């Protein structure tokens, strides 16, 4: 190929490569920084499993606020009895028991409302978006049902209605409609013990750290889960048991959106990569095409047949 290229094409190629590097360097603020910073008005939930008694009051409250049907599969049609988050359950209290039954604790699961959510990064038409106060919400009129959110979410939160012809993506939306009415989410509003509380993220983070400082050795690793996980989340956890045991995965502090887009955001910045590739390939193709066309009468004469493309 190199031998076939003339000086002008080589120069064009170098200008192309140089240009894309220059574009990359001068590109503005990143949309997916490695360590996103929460908006000043970002809300949060703080769940502390040393306080939770497992009364599950938050579960029917969630179902009621979101108009969800009870999941009665395991209870013989009698009462709500989900085993995990599913297309009828946006919020669940689960019990963790040590294999030797020496200790147990509860864990509340719902959307973590990441600061830079993988589901939002991957969603092709922005059906999932970071709405006001940082709530991650789903818009039915933009969703094509590709389920990339389920593949991307590191917490396995979004669920799909596999049994419906008009399927929805079901996930906790931080009771966004209640937030708009200046009410707190149903689960925090109903929690009788204060195991899960609602507030500004900065306030709750400070409160969680106060609790850790107040009782050294009480909390696992003396840290708040969600402060840095996957770039930081707006649901924060304090636990007496190892986080990965209660289903909160070990994750790095870099946002997945940053990892997934750090190269493509450069290549596709102002569509420069494809345009430069088209210019570069196009100039070579045009030259080769012109020669191919110039030789066409000769080929047609030799074969006596119309040239084929």
């Amino acid at each position, binding site marked *: *190929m190199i031998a*076939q290229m003339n000086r002008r094409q080589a120069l064009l190629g170098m200008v192309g490569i140089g240009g894309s590097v220059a574009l990359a360097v001068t590109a503005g603020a990143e949309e*997916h920084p490695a360590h996103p910073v929460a908006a000043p008005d970002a809300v949060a939930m703080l769940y502390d499993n040393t306080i939770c008694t497992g009364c599950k009051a938050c579960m029917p409250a969630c179902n009621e606020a979101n108009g969800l049907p009870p999941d009665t599969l395991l209870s013989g049609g009698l009462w709500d009895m989900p085993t995990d988050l599913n297309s009828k359950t946006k919020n669940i209290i689960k019990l963790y028991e040590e294999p030797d039954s020496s200790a147990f604790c509860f864990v509340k699961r719902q959307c973590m409302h990441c600061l830079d959510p*993988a589901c939002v*990064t*991957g*969603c*092709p*038409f*922005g059906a999932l978006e970071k709405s006001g106060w940082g709530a991650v919400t789903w818009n*039915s*009129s*933009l*969703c*094509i*049902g*590709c*389920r*990339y959110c*389920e*593949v*991307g979410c*590191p917490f*396995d939160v979004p669920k*799909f*209605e*596999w*049994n419906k*012809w*008009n*399927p929805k993506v079901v996930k906790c939306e931080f009771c966004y409609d209640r937030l708009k009415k200046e009410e707190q989410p149903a689960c925090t509003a109903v929690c009788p013990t204060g195991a899960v509380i609602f507030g500004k993220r900065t306030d709750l983070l400070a409160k969680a750290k106060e609790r850790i400082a107040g009782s050294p050795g009480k909390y696992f690793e003396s840290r708040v889960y969600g402060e840095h996980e996957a770039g930081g989340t707006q649901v924060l956890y304090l636990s007496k048991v190892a986080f990965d045991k209660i289903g909160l995965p070990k*994750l790095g502090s870099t946002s*997945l*959106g940053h*990892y*997934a*887009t*750090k*190269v*493509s*955001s450069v290549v*596709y910045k102002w569509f420069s990569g*494809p345009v430069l*590739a*088209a210019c570069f*390939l*196009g100039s*070579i*193709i*045009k030259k*080769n*095409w*012109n020669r*191919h*066309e110039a030789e066409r009468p000769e080929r047609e004469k030799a*074969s006596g*047949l*119309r040239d*084929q*493309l």
Partner: protein
Amino acid sequence: MSARDIAGITLINHWQRGVPVYREPVVTPTLKVLAVIAVIGLSLAAARLFSPLSPFSGMNDAYAWGIWKTFNVMTLTALGSGPLALGLAAWVLNREKLHVVMRTALASGFLFYSTGLIALGIDVGRPWNFYNALLPWRWNAHSAMLEVAICMPIYCAIFLAFETLPMVLERFCYTGSAQTKATLRRLFPKFRRIYPFMITGAYVLPLMHQSSLGALLLLAGNKISPLWQSPMLPFLYLVAACVCGLGFVVFLLCIACLRYSRPLDVAILSELGTLLSGACFGFVFLQLADLAIRGQLGTAFRFDEMSVLLLIQVALILVPGIALRRRAARETPRTLLNMSIFACLGGMLYRFIPATIAFHPAPNATYFPSVPELLMSIGYIALATLAFGLAVKYFAVLPGNIAEWNYMFRRIGRTQQPVLRTQ
């Protein structure tokens, strides 16, 4: 132009232009079997349009992508990347010899892509919202899924279809009415004027979406085994597409010429073999360098399930890379065929594994495609195979000797072709 005879096949340079298969009957037992499989698959696909996904697939919330996406789209469009790989070789690297086999690549590529897109259309849960693709202000420019969802249909319906069009229209230059012939005569110069620009698009677009298919998996993060999860996934997916594309064209040429008793062309196959060898070496080098840089070489040789899978995949691509460096191997049809199968399998494994076997979304989650899911997947493949079998008979797809060229094309509807060379 040395004539040699190996295993009964005369290896002289026989491929001068696309020539339809004249003598074979159209309706064969194979065609009937394929038609039955395709009809079953497509009927299920049609039924799925009126039903939720759950009765038709074994997918679940953990394994939200089944074989329709991971096999029919992510894996098989790699085999359908022949037009990209061969096109770049022919028009950019200026391998003039390869123009004659472009049509085989184009027909197969178009069929892989179009059946893949059918699979995708049946797979998405809310297809009616796809009109959003026409409203650019709703696009999430950071989503690899957006890139795939928009780029792939445009490529298949516009650019790949444009490239495939000449071999369809050619037929009517010979069989059409005087008026059709006159229209085509007016059309072709215009066609040739935009051709170089269209094929540029036809190479840039797959460069974009074939790499974006790999980029899809980046967001899955550590759900994918560290042997495959890498920032290099998009680029490796692209190179794997070239390995598969070249490998599949070699495979298809050998198989089709064997099936229709066409002589082979040693010069062109050898050229393809050289390119395939280069692509294989390039791929293995990049994959191993990536593993080394990420410090995963130790994991690669741990000989557990994932490591063995990786080593098999690397071997499947490395073996043809080494074998096809020898001229004698490139000029032996049997070796070439075997090595092209290895390369295709290796490339397919690389594209398939990270989205399925090496994808561990949740501790207790499992997925195996259900029977209707498999039937639909196989149905799409049967449809493409059947369509290719018809294309080689009605259009000048397969390369052949110019002496075989018969000015008459097989009449549509007539199964036997008793025509003689006229002019």
